[in-house]
């Protein structure tokens, strides 16, 4: 947890999202407020239909709220124009999907370099950055492999590298472990955790409590509203106190 009060990387303010209208109106989100700080991993849990995926797509600029504000690195996505949003998505926001979404015709390094190249970085520099990012995550041995030459867990780790290459500090992960077995899923979470420990801000949507437990904060959604949230307790002595009573 950050000590001094830094500025949140992501701020959601009074966020609402209504799908449809009239009799078929569905309130997917009802007044969500959430700040995510650098170095913090926040997990969002809730039953299906509770609005957790809607929250993430809006935070990532893939969908627009009915009302409220989405502020990423001081830019309000709800008032920014399309060009600004696109730039923000290239430079500030990384998205990790359940099915990895790597481009099959590109190697791992090329996949990671792609957002940088799209952002105008020279191909050579983008490649150097990509390889550095992969090395930092112990994935450099995968640099020249194509997605179909990698396991699911490896692809997902490359996707995390792609989400965080460059100066991007916000990673949004939508059920990133959904298609992975338990141990591989854990290695993906460990990587996400270490990226947040290194200063990124992360939002993880999951229905798996064991993966949510890697987060600093777990936010529970129900019917589009935050009903509760947990903070990681600071005590390291948790295994001595209550255990003696049993």
């Amino acid at each position, binding site marked *: 947890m950050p000590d001094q009060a830094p500025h949140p990387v992501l701020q959601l303010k009074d966020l609402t999202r209504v799908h449809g209208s009239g009799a078929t109106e569905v309130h997917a989100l009802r007044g969500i407020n959430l700040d995510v700080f650098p170095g913090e991993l926040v997990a969002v849990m809730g039953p299906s239909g509770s609005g957790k995926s809607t929250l993430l797509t809006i935070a990532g600029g893939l969908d627009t709220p009915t009302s409220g504000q989405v502020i990423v690195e001081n830019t309000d996505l709800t008032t920014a124009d399309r060009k600004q949003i696109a730039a923000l998505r290239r430079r500030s926001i990384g998205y990790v999907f359940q099915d990895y979404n790597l481009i099959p015709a590109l190697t791992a390094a090329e996949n990671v370099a792609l957002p940088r190249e799209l952002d105008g970085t020279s191909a050579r520099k983008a490649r150097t950055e990509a390889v550095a990012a992969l090395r930092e995550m112990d994935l450099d041995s995968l640099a020249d492999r194509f997605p179909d030459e990698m396991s699911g867990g490896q692809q997902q780790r490359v996707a995390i590298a792609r989400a965080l290459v460059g100066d991007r500090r916000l990673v949004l992960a939508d059920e990133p472990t959904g298609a992975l077995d338990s141990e591989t899923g854990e290695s993906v979470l460990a990587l996400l955790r270490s990226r947040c420990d290194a200063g990124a801000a992360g939002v993880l949507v999951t229905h*798996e409590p*064991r993966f949510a437990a890697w*987060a600093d904060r*777990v936010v*529970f959604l129900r019917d589009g509203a935050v009903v509760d949230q*947990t903070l990681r307790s600071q005590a390291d002595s948790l295994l001595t106190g209550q255990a003696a009573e049993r």
Partner: protein
Amino acid sequence: MSIRHGLLALLESGPRYGSQLRTEFESRTGATWPLNVGQVYTTLNRLERDGMVVQDGEDDAGHALYVITDAGREELRNWFRSPVDRRSPPRDELAIKLAMAVGAPGIDIRDVIQSQRHHTVQAMQDYTRLKAQATDVSPDNRDDVAWLLVLEQLIFQTEAEARWLDHCEARLVRLSLMNTQKEKQRRKEQEGAADAAGDGTDGQIRPADPAPTGEKPSPASRVGLGRSRSR
């Protein structure tokens, strides 16, 4: 929890003093189930009575050195060979609490579930953090490996509980939806009956609320899942 077999297992690697056994038991299990020295000696006395261990001399301070016997080794082997019995589960306070919350007046069972979920997930966060610190264990260090296994057991156990709570909540929501549908169906049927009576009013005289006189309370209200709160 079998302290008895835990001590036998430690004694199989060689003679030990009581205080040594206590320290080793705790370092193997990461002090998850702390033992006091009294428990250790009580257990050793019983083991001695049952012929599983014998005393073999004392140190200068008069502490007895314990050695496992053949009978003790046999007992230990049996313990490792046989599964832990799960068919006579110990009383579970949470299961009892939820069972009692069904229909308890003034209690919203969903609040009970959420407050437990909060606690359980927080415990998982703490265990997971300890685990993240424990993963660079050396595979040769018995204590490190054992501690990791114990920690992961705690994580899986709390996970099972969190999932069960999710399931309980989903189950209750489904039951209450079923109930709403039944209610609708019944209203329809009552209206249908009124229409069929054909008294010329074309079903326009309808009671605002199809008076549920003398009916059993609905399952939704019985499980404390009234709709008044959330929608």
